[in-house]
Each structure stands twice: as structure tokens, then as C-alpha cells.
């Protein structure tokens, strides 16, 4: 499906995208590949919203800043990929798309999500990696997405994760890599289908003992937890391997240590990640 290389620089930016669209229309291709086409606006893709048959729309590596609400017209869309654009805001209408299963808005400039964003009826994979989101900018119904099986929030600015995360009963993958997390809610232990948990590169010192309810050490599971200022007993176990950590946090000894640690309210570790150079902050710098 590789695009034939275009030798000359197109006279109009429109032509590259338009060519793909016209071609897709002609052969009734339901999957539209528009990655890296120097698109900066939906205006360069005339007629796109009338292509009701399309099931996948890939627009990664472009310069799109605004997503028009009319995109929700594409009622058969199952996969929508905006990775690496310059989107600052998403329209509420996206959440009503009846068949959307995979939404990738990774590597954009999102500071917040629209009200009611969590209304997606069948969303399974939500990728919000590398944006500027935190717990205060999530809409109230964010964790109502019961169909969600993978949630990517790596490279954002969360310090806390709302306890409502426990409502995502079908969640198998939760990525919180390189945020500013100070602690994890014990409700993460309710996600009994979880088989991938990425919490490396945060400010975590302890884990709620409820995490011990999860099966994160089987051959089909992953727990990534490096680069946190763990309390010494956890750090010691981690140097032996993740299974040792999981065994340890299930012990009475740890439960005692955890409760004492919570009661003591020790100092919060400083932020570890310097994010000033993050591309998602580009706008704020300019």
C-alpha cells in the first residue's frame, strides 16, 4: 500500500491528499491512508465527510490543528489515527461515533478533553500518549468507557489517577509511563483483566497492596515499574525482579509498612521529568 513517491513538489498542498482520496473513492477502498501528507487542515480533503463507507482513517504525521465536528459523519469509521499532529482540542461529536473502536490522538497538544468525552459506545483502544493531560483536565465521564481494553496515557502530566479508573472493567492495558504520579489508587487492583501495567518513570514510592490482586507476572503479563523513588523494601525486591515485588506486596509485612507509610505522610518526591522540551508543549513556548 506504499504511496508511489512523488518526484516533484506539488504545486498545491491539496493535491497529495486529494489524490489518495480520489483513488480511494474510485476503488471503494474503505481504508484511507493519509499519513505524512503535509495536511494542515481538513479543508485540504474535500469530500472526505461524504465517504461514509470508510472504516479507517489514518492522518498521522500531519500538521492538523483543528478537528471539525463534521468528522463524526463517518458513521462506519472504526479506526481513527491522528498520531503526531498539532491538535489542541477535540470536538465532542467524536464521542458519538457508533463504530469507533480505536482512537489514536497520541503526540498532539491536548491540554484537556471535551465534556462528555467518555460517551463512546464501543471504544476499545484509546491512545492519548504524549499530550499535556492531567487528572484535572479529564471530563467527568472519562472512566465510563466500559468497553475500553487499552488506555495509553504515557508522557502526560498526571500526579494522581482518579479512583474511578476501577470502573474500566475490561481494561487489559494501562500505560502511565513517565507522568508525575505520586501514588496509584487502590482501585487499580479491581482491574482483574489487566495484563499490562506501565508505571515506570513516575514519582511512586509505594504500591497499594491491592495491586497484589492482579496477575501481572504470568507469561502473558507485563509490569513495568522502573525509575521510581520506591521505598527501600520495594526497590530491593525490584532489583531481584518484578515477581519478587508482587510476592512482597502480598505479604502482611508489606501491608503494615504500607499503612505506616500512608499515616506518616512523608515528603512528596520532586518531579523527575523535565518536560520543557516536549513537542506537545510547543504552543506554550511559542
Amino acid at each position, binding site marked *: *500500500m*506504499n504511496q508511489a513517491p512523488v518526484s516533484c513538489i506539488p504545486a498545491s498542498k491539496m493535491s497529495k491528499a486529494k489524490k489518495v482520496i480520489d483513488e480511494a473513492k474510485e476503488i471503494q477502498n474503505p*481504508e484511507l*491512508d493519509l*499519513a*505524512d501528507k503535509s495536511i494542515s487542515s481538513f479543508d485540504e480533503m474535500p469530500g472526505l465527510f461524504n465517504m461514509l463507507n470508510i472504516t*479507517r482513517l*489514518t492522518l*498521522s*504525521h500531519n500538521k492538523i490543528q483543528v478537528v471539525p465536528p463534521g468528522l463524526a459523519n463517518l458513521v462506519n469509521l472504526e*479506526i481513527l*489515527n491522528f*498520531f*503526531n499532529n498539532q491538535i489542541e482540542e477535540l470536538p465532542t461529536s467524536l464521542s458519538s461515533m457508533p463504530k469507533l*473502536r*480505536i482512537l*489514536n490522538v*497520541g*503526540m498532539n497538544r491536548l491540554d484537556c478533553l471535551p465534556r462528555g468525552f467518555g460517551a463512546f459506545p464501543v471504544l*476499545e483502544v484509546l*491512545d492519548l*500518549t*504524549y499530550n499535556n493531560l492531567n487528572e484535572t483536565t479529564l471530563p467527568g465521564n472519562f472512566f465510563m468507557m466500559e468497553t475500553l*481494553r*487499552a488506555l*495509553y496515557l*504515557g*508522557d502526560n502530566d498526571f500526579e494522581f489517577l482518579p479512583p474511578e479508573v476501577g470502573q474500566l472493567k475490561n481494561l487489559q*492495558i494501562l*500505560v502511565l*509511563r*513517565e507522568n508525575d504520579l505520586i501514588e496509584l489508587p487502590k482501585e487499580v487492583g479491581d482491574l482483574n483483566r489487566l*495484563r*499490562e501495567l*506501565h508505571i*515506570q*518513570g513516575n514519582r511512586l514510592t509505594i504500591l497499594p497492596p491491592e495491586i497484589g490482586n492482579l496477575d501481572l507476572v504470568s507469561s*502473558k*503479563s*507485563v509490569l513495568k515499574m*522502573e*525509575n521510581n523513588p520506591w521505598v527501600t523494601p520495594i526497590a530491593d525486591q525490584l532489583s*531481584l*525482579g518484578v*515477581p519478587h515485588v508482587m510476592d512482597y506486596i502480598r505479604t502482611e509485612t508489606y501491608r503494615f509498612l504500607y499503612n505506616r507509610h500512608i499515616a506518616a505522610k512523608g515528603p512528596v518526591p520532586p518531579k523527575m521529568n523535565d518536560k520543557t*522540551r*516536549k*513537542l506537545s508543549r510547543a504552543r506554550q513556548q511559542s
Partner: protein
Amino acid sequence: MPGIDMSLDNMFCSRCGDGFEPHEKIVNSNGELWHTQCFVCAQCFRPFPEGIFYEFEGRKYCEHDFHVLFAPCCGKCGEFVIGRVIKAMNANWHPRCFRCQMCDKELADLGFIRNQGRALCHECNAKAKAVDLGKYVCHKCHGLIDDKPLRFRGEVYHPYHFNCTACGVELNSDAREVRSRPGFAANEMNELYCLRCHDKMGIPICGACRRPIEERVVTALGKHWHVEHFVCAKCEKPFLGHRHYEKKGLAYCETHYHQLFGNLCFVCNQVIAGDVFTAMNKAWCVHHFACSVCDQKMNQKTKFYEFDLKPVCKKCYEKFPSELKRRLRKAHEQTPKKMPL
């Protein structure tokens, strides 16, 4: 008639005892004489219609009164029984009304057996007794079948009444009934074979119940199955033509295959039927193994980078901001190499 005095002086009415007037009409029946007005029913004192009367204990009755007084009533239809009366089960019966209470056969000439207040023919009595004992009655000799019965054309028999259609050997209960004309629903075409001959005939045997398959045959896992016996190894529900998934010589329904072996494509979340790409704790079907950033399809040979345990093609990775690439590189170097558990 010589020797019999026929003069009026010696003749008297059998009823009133008086003599007869000359020229008077005299009724003569079996040598007895009556005045016409005296020759009447002993019950209703009326002449006998059409001269027909019934005699009982020396008295004569019209048909109606005789029935009313003396004829038995049938235990079944409630009508008078004239002619042959069957006395049985403390009642009277017309011969055609006294029947076996199971098979309705007339019992008058066959004899009957009383079985729990019922009149039964010998066969039905044997059957009833067999049912009570949990046994079968041979349809041919009507004897009880003590060992395993042989089922043939819808009835049960002692196996030794039959011989193998092919080799002629006397049959035992292992014998098999075979539809000689496949497709005929009625079983009057069926034939019996001994087990040896039957095995030689190449009739498929169900892998589950070990019995021959005479209807639709399902062929799977290198065996034959009755449609209803080809079931999911986990939930034991028959597939009934639905797709099944094989693993280590067992078949599973879609739900339980996925539940047990978890080969769901990360993108379409469907059970992967054909080739599977397995990497980074996930699986993909051939159609959906693609770069997670640009959605371009990849194959076994495509080089890709790992980003949050998702595949990223080289082209896309190179477009990542350098500060992210630096962090990823650092994390990669720090990752503890696989440790023994």
C-alpha cells in the same frame, strides 16, 4: 299318533287345567296344550309377539320380559348378552366386548391373565411383567430378555433369533442394525450384521460414542462424529456447523478457545484463525499487524521499534521528537536483561 288319546275329554289346558270346547282353537307346544288366551307371557300376561317365547324354570316369557328378568348385561357395552356369554373378571361380556386391555385383542378364545385388575392377553401380560422388572420382551417369542436385547426395525428381540446378513453367524447383542438403503426414513429396510461384518462395511464410527453414524457425518480432528456429538471440549455444546478451533487434538467453540488460549488480534479483537504474529505480549492477525503510528502493514521481515509495547515502524520512529527518542533509548539501556525467575 297311535297310543295317544286325542279325544277332547282327555285334553286340558296346561295353565288353567280346564278342558276345551269343541271347535275351540288349541295351542300345542312341545306336546303341551293351552287355551289361546292362556298361552301368554308369565310376567305380562300378553300373547307372545310373533309366537316367540323364552322358557325358564318351566315358565314362558316374552322376549322383552325374559331379558329384563334373566338375561346378563355386558360389562363393557351395557347391552343384554344373547347367545354366548363370557363370564370373567366377575362380570358378563359379549365375546366381542371382552378384550385385552393393552392390545385390544379379543380374549374369548385365547384365554386371558388377570394382571393388577386388568384382563391381558398372554403377550401383553409378559410385557407388563417385563416392564415391572425393567426388562424387555422379545417381539418374536414373547419371552423375557434377560441379557442385552437386540433392537431391530423398532422392536426388541433376543439376538439369537437372527443371523448376520453377510456371514450367517448367529447374532449376539453386539450386532448392528444397518440402513440398507440410506435416506429411507422407515426402518423396514434395515438389516442386521454381526460386529465383524459391520466393521468391514466401512460405516463411520463416531469418535465420541463409538456407535455407527447413519445420518450426517462430521469429519474433524481426523475422526468422524455424529453431528450432535462433535462438541466444544470446554462447554460440551455441539458446534452444529458453527466454526470450531482446534488445539492439541481438541476442538473448542470460539468463546472458549479464546478464553483458554487468548489469541485475540490486538486490533480487531477477533479470534485469529490463520497465521498469528506474536510480539510484545500481544497477537495480531495477518491483516492487522501494522505500525501503530501510521497503520502501514508489516510482515515478519519488517524492522520495528517497541513503544509502550506497541510496534512502530522505522520511518515513524525516526519522526519521534529527539527528546523522546533519547528517553526511550535510555530506558531501553536500563531495562534489566531477562532474569531467571
